């Protein structure tokens, strides 16, 4: 065996497996997206099986583009992803800077902080929607009820009562409506992924040039301007990486949406595909191709960015 062919041979299982994993399902999606393929069609039984004679051209794409749910799903996907990105990066930078310097119990705080990241998505959703955000039985409901009881008590109190009698009762927010359940998803995913951002930013802060900071202190630069002109530029690349990786993960967000929002209209692209896939495979596949295009746009940026540093 020559020196050249052996490395290839060692790589081939992984490469072949991933090639199959990528090409066959995607090829089938592409094929299904161009034919009429409906699982329950009593009127046209020939459509229930995939076949080239059911060719529909770009009909499925047209159907999907004209579906009002499609634009909403894209808009909602982007809204959820962008909100999560904004919140995790902002919180991540703040917390990373906060715990960057040594303090008693830093190791424990680090462990506490990272824990949410390892919670499985299904449990995350069940936990937040039932036990924390529920308007009656969750922590939110209990807190609101507590505040209302307090206000009620103050209203009957002797002197200050007349002042507090003007205060309204607080209404708890239901997180199961279309719009608010998107907020619920944003909250729970932010909780889960902020630790990831913190961890990455912390790792990056460890390599920050300390001498430069000392020099800045001697020059009279305050903590804010040090952060603004030294730390933030240093974090630019990790921030970009966190944004890209999260974008890819959250564009395919599924379990949380499924658990929080089933049937209440709050859908994203993967959820819409799941809905179509219950019956209209052609439309589901066309939507899938749109999802691939969307993910590719994001991925190209990420690959460019990581590619530069790969062989350093």
């Amino acid at each position, binding site marked *: 065996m020559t020196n050249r062919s052996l490395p290839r041979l060692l790589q081939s299982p992984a490469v072949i497996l991933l090639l199959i994993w990528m090409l066959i399902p995607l090829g089938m999606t592409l094929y299904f997206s161009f034919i009429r393929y409906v699982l329950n069609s009593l009127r046209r039984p020939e459509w229930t099986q995939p076949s080239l004679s059911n060719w529909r051209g770009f009909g499925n794409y047209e159907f999907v583009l004209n579906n009002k749910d499609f634009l909403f799903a894209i808009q909602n996907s982007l809204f959820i992803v962008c909100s999560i990105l904004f919140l995790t990066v902002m919180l991540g930078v703040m917390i990373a800077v906060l715990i960057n310097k040594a303090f008693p119990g830093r190791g424990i705080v680090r462990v506490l902080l990272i*824990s949410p990241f390892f919670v499985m998505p299904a449990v995350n959703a069940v*936990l*937040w*929607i*039932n*036990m924390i955000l529920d308007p009656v039985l969750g922590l939110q409901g209990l807190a609101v009820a507590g505040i209302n009881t307090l206000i009620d008590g103050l209203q009957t109190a002797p002197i200050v009562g007349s002042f507090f009698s003007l205060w309204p009762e607080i209404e708890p927010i239901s997180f199961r409506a279309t719009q608010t359940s998107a907020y619920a998803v944003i909250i729970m995913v932010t909780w889960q992924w902020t630790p990831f951002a913190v961890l990455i930013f912390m790792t990056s802060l460890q390599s920050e040039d300390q001498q430069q900071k000392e020099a800045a202190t001697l020059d009279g630069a305050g903590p804010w301007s040090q952060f603004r002109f030294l730390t933030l530029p240093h974090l630019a690349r990790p921030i970009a990486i966190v944004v890209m990786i999260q974008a890819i993960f959250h564009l395919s967000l599924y379990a949380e949406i499924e658990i929080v929002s089933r049937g209440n209209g709050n859908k994203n692209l993967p959820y819409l595909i799941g809905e179509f896939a219950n019956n209209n495979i052609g439309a589901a596949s066309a939507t899938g191709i749109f999802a691939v295009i969307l993910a590719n746009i994001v991925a190209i940026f990420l690959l460019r960015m990581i590619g530069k540093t790969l062989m350093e």
Partner: protein
Amino acid sequence: MAIVAQSSKTRRIRRATLAWIVGLLFFYPIFWLVLTSFKTDADAVKPEHLLFFTPTLENYLNMTENYDYWRFATNSIITSVFATIFALAVGIPCAYAMAFNPSRATKDVLMWMLSTKMLPAAAVLYPMTFLTKSLGLFDTHFMIIVVLMLINLPIVIWMLFTYFKEIPKEIIEAGQMDGVNTWGEIKEILIPLAWGGIASTALLCFIFCWNEAYWTVRLTTTDAATLSKLIEGNRAPEGLFFGRLSAVSAAAVGPIVVLGWFCQKQLVQGLTFGAVK
């Protein structure tokens, strides 16, 4: 000077306090889940038993009859362990070749592997369902193991690659001089040297397999259903059974969160593919 020291000390204390508050706030939902799991279903929704209640193990003891927990847990363990083993078995030779015999295409191959990870799972939902059903593999351990292995393979190869690159080439070459064959090099030299890196890669891969919630939910019904499927199926009790639901949830995430503590540092390398150091 004393005043400056004083003020910087208060600032340090304030900083530490704030850091602790943030840490506790982030951990709070998990603490809350575990706390609720020790309450009876009735106590779990009563405000007066928010913090003070008689702890009970009932929820954990009845987990098997309420949810058939162990069947799902066994499936999770089997699929995650085997997916991790297979991912390593395929990944180690691949990363070995890439790290010690890089060719011009190595970088592109690595990038391409990464790009498979970015393919949205939902896009191939129906073809995957169709294929697994027509091959008779729907709801089988085998299928879940294969899928879990494939979705984590790029991360595994990337992590192993970054670890292997740290090993001096001379050590491997010395082995070649001594006439050790490739298999011997991997077994006798590479694996002992990179043991720590391989272990943390395996741990992280196991965690990702355990938490996977798309394919494990969509490609199973009962026989190969994992804990993700179990929780997903019990998602909306509307206040009923908070206690028992908490217990089964805590039992599903507890071991993994603890494992996660041990490999938090590797997470950075694994998920940023070595781009942040």
